[in-house]
């Protein structure tokens, strides 16, 4: 049969394949040549833009990358960490955090906190970037604006300790009933709704930043939307904002404490959430800091022998349950069963694999202060002993109560980051093999996940909560029945009472006792399964010093940073 194919065809094929080989070699060589030419060309053009170095000591310029640009910079509506970080550089409230994360005077020169209110005396030399002084009216106006129902600020609740604030925000009282009065340009008088133990912590939060009324009204609703729609009173002012592409902060020469600020320019020409891309920028000397790394990048950093640093970002991550009566997760036995097989230590050491993360034991993280020492030393978290057979017994009871013949199928709502996906698959396998519970993973982008949580469209959800102020209350009130961020609608009367007590009491013993009780209730009711307290690992250029990382407040903070030529 093979004879039927004429030989000539074979030789044709052979010569064709020779041609193919030669073409292949030529193409490869050509491609290599092109690459060489291109890299040479880019080196030529690159030398023209060499000012884009991570650190330029001469001009005091620092180049950074951010995960994303701030959605807008109106402090009354800011919610995300990027906005808070930028606002911390271009704005200043009554108080601020210093390099040791202590509260120090900002615009307020001195202050006095009483049981029923507070008085702030403002410094004379605090200036807006157009040269006019920052006055008490600016604070009063900003707080009124944040509480106005038409602003729809998500963080309005942080102003609720002010007298009548909640009623104004919900529209039952007019705005002028607010217990905030500018006595004159330099004295601000505040009335509280009830005694308040942590007001100093609150006024450092961006929602409490000042806004000048005439400027705000001039902007016609565009306040904070662009570089010319903002007035600055902080250590830096923004000079460039190309949306989605470039931010540039320059030293504010009108800032009262300008001696403190040693950087001249903070340039942010890169926005990416991809930590590998950020690491590559760092490797090329394009950025001075990669503010957090993933576990996959650690090997590369070790290989490069860069200096690794760590800090706890203060947030607590846990599995939240949906307490809606139609959901299987409203059943206590089911939640108990899940709790009895979840080992946070395994999650942290085998799945997350990043140093600095602590296995979660409680809603209240280890760094919170108690009466004298750390809260968690004074009120240790309840111990969970893993017990698979007890868990199966609880599951059996749960199925009985729910009237099910087989273990329920649960939807687990997570972010669409790679890390979240891994944790979800770990939980899926854990609950599947230990309890036979089928977990459906619902991966959503951040905004969609928040929306689904708010609509109570989940059974289980991985939930992280970062502190707004350094008091256990920022965590404790998360599970109060009235809190809009209590997405699973956990509701417990004793817990609510305990939160009310902690909000209104000034006695640290009573307050810490209340938080201790809350910690117990959350454990007894299995309101959550703690996963981990997040730690972050980061790298920075050795020439950059004085960068402050913190759990509460703007992070990372470059207002105290400086450049050393030869570290």
């Amino acid at each position, binding site marked *: 049969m093979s004879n039927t194919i004429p030989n000539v065809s074979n030789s044709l094929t052979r010569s064709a394949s020779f041609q193919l080989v030669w073409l292949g070699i030529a193409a490869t060589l050509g491609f290599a040549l092109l690459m060489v030419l291109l890299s040479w060309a880019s080196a030529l053009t690159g030398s023209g833009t060499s000012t884009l170095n991570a650190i330029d000591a001469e001009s005091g310029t620092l180049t950074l990358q951010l995960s994303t640009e701030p959605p807008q910079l109106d402090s009354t509506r800011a919610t995300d960490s990027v906005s808070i970080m930028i606002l911390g550089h271009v704005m200043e409230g009554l108080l601020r955090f210093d390099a040791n994360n202590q509260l120090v005077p900002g615009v307020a020169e001195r202050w006095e906190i009483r049981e029923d209110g507070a008085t702030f005396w403002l410094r004379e030399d605090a200036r807006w970037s157009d040269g006019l002084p920052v006055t008490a009216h600016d604070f009063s106006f900003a707080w009124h604006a944040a509480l106005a129902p038409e602003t729809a600020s998500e963080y309005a609740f942080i102003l609720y300790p002010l007298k009548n604030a909640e009623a104004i925000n919900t529209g039952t009282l007019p705005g002028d009933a607010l217990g905030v009065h500018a006595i004159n340009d330099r004295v601000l008088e505040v009335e509280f709704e009830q005694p308040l133990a942590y007001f100093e912590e609150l006024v450092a939060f961006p929602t409490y930043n000042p806004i000048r009324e005439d400027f705000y009204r001039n902007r016609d609703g565009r306040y904070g939307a662009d570089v010319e729609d903002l007035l600055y009173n902080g250590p830096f002012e923004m000079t460039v904002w190309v949306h989605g592409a470039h931010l540039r902060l320059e030293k504010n020469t009108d800032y009262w404490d300008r001696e403190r600020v040693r950087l001249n320019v903070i340039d942010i020409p890169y926005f990416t959430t991809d930590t590998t891309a950020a690491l590559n920028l760092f490797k090329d000397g394009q950025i001075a800091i990669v503010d957090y790394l993933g576990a996959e990048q650690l090997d590369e950093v070790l290989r490069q022998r860069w200096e690794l640093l760590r800090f706890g970002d203060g947030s607590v991550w846990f599995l939240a349950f949906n307490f809606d009566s139609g959901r299987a997760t409203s059943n206590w036995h089911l939640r108990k069963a899940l709790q009895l097989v979840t080992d946070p230590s395994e999650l942290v050491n085998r799945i997350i694999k990043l140093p600095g993360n602590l296995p979660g034991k409680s809603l209240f993280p280890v760094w919170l202060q108690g009466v004298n020492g750390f809260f968690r030393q004074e009120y240790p978290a309840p111990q969970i002993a893993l017990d698979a057979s007890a868990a199966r017994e609880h599951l059996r009871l749960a199925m009985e109560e729910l009237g099910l013949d087989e273990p329920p199928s649960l939807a687990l709502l997570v972010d669409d980051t790679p890390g979240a996906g891994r944790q979800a698959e770990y939980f899926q396998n854990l609950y599947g093999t230990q309890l036979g519970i089928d977990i459906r993973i619902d991966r959503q982008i951040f905004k969609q996940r928040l929306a689904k949580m708010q609509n109570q469209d989940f059974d289980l959800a991985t939930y992280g909560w970062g502190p707004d102020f350094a008091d256990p209350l920022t965590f404790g009130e998360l599970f109060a029945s009235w809190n809009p961020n209590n997405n699973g609608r956990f509701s417990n009367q004793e817990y609510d009472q305990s939160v009310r007590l902690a909000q209104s009491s000034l006695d640290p013993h009573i307050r810490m006792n209340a938080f201790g009780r809350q910690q117990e209730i959350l454990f007894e009711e299995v309101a959550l399964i703690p996963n981990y307290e997040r730690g972050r*690992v980061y790298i920075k250029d050795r020439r950059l010093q004085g960068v402050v990382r913190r759990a509460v407040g703007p992070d990372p903070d470059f207002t105290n940073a400086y450049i050393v030529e030869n570290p």
Partner: protein
Amino acid sequence: MTEFSLTAADFERVSVERRVQTIARPSLSYWQDAWVRLKANRRALVSFYIVIVLLLFTVAGPWIWAVDPTVQDLDQLSTPPGADRRAQIVQPYVPWNGVFTTINESLSDTVGATTEIRLAQPASTQTVRLVWDPVLGASGYRVYRNVYDPAPDGAVGLPLAEIYDPRQVSYEDLLDLTPTRYWYSVIATDRNGREAEEYTTLAVDTIRVITAAEAQTRGLVDLETLLSLGDEVRVSFHPLGTDYLGRDMLARLMYGARVSLFIGIIAPLFFVLTGILYGSAAGFIGGRVDQILMRFADFVVALPFLLFMILFKIAFGIGPGESGVVPMLVALVVLSWPATARLVRGQILQIREEAYIGASQLLGAKTHYLILRHMIPNTVGVILVTLTFAVPTVIFVEAFLSFIGMGVAPPTPSWGSMCNEGIQTMLNHPHELIFPAALISLTVLAFNLLGDGLRDALDARMRSRE
């Protein structure tokens, strides 16, 4: 009456001797000829065998390599192929309280180096327990770990922990321990929290360990009581290594191939069939009907695939965490047929005008006879070629959709989703990306080359010459 019969011999020609050399070959049908030419095309033949091996890999593979692709082995995370599998039997993990000193001195502004770091028990992948001598005046300690020797430039590596209690002179490391050599450095901090200039480093070789109970659940031994402490076992074998959750790569690739090849073969079958029916109807009827049908096909071509895929996913009520394979299949079939339809229509239009069709019609052939006897056999080459080229395209689409998370739901693997996961750890554990990526490339290449060979083989104009 005598019987008169003719035999074949009677019809034999009166011999006229003629010596003519005849050259003949057995008559070859179209298919036989195509097969011959396909066999002569070595590339196509190799591709054909690769495709068969892939099908075996998918269908028979999971029977031969009967490993559950969803089982997570947290002791063997991201293990490359050919890793050392020896493990020692140890006791179950018991929490450790650490070591505390009672000395309580005043803190000082400068502190010296930690003098000696010891191991409280042999280092293993279960735990590494470090103990060191207290440093005078230290306010606390920092513990670092590196996989490279920090000696040359003081790169101490991962900051494992900060100990604020100066009495605590121990640390337990549990973080992602693998059997390798670690360099632990313990640095004392002074009153102001600054690290001491000098420090001590301890090199530790960890060995892989496993508890007897674990060994039994993993099926390494029949009964855990057969094992005693210190025995050596071999942990489960993973020929292609494991992924980031310790799942067997080979098993995952086999199951992943099911999804990829299922979509890759079923979807083209359906849309090519639709295309044939649609195209031949348009081509055969012709005229206004043809115009309308083909304009509709143009309209379908213009529809964006990804958008429709998402719409179908919603329309099918595919909830979170459920597989998106069915909507993917539907979207592929609904949106991909026009290419085949156009091709077949063109072919039919051409054949319709051929002389033999006219002849056949004159002889009284009916429409269905014309279609079945002449039209379809003459377009079958084109159709087969479209089919083989559609398969790799669809496999690639599936891989892409799973890559962006639109396809299968975890824990079901698919080559695309495996690539997506592998790309995260590409630099450290390249095997997690290379294997699925290589399989996608190989499959797509094999189907393309096979399609190429088929096109040459089935082209009537390239039939073997006499």
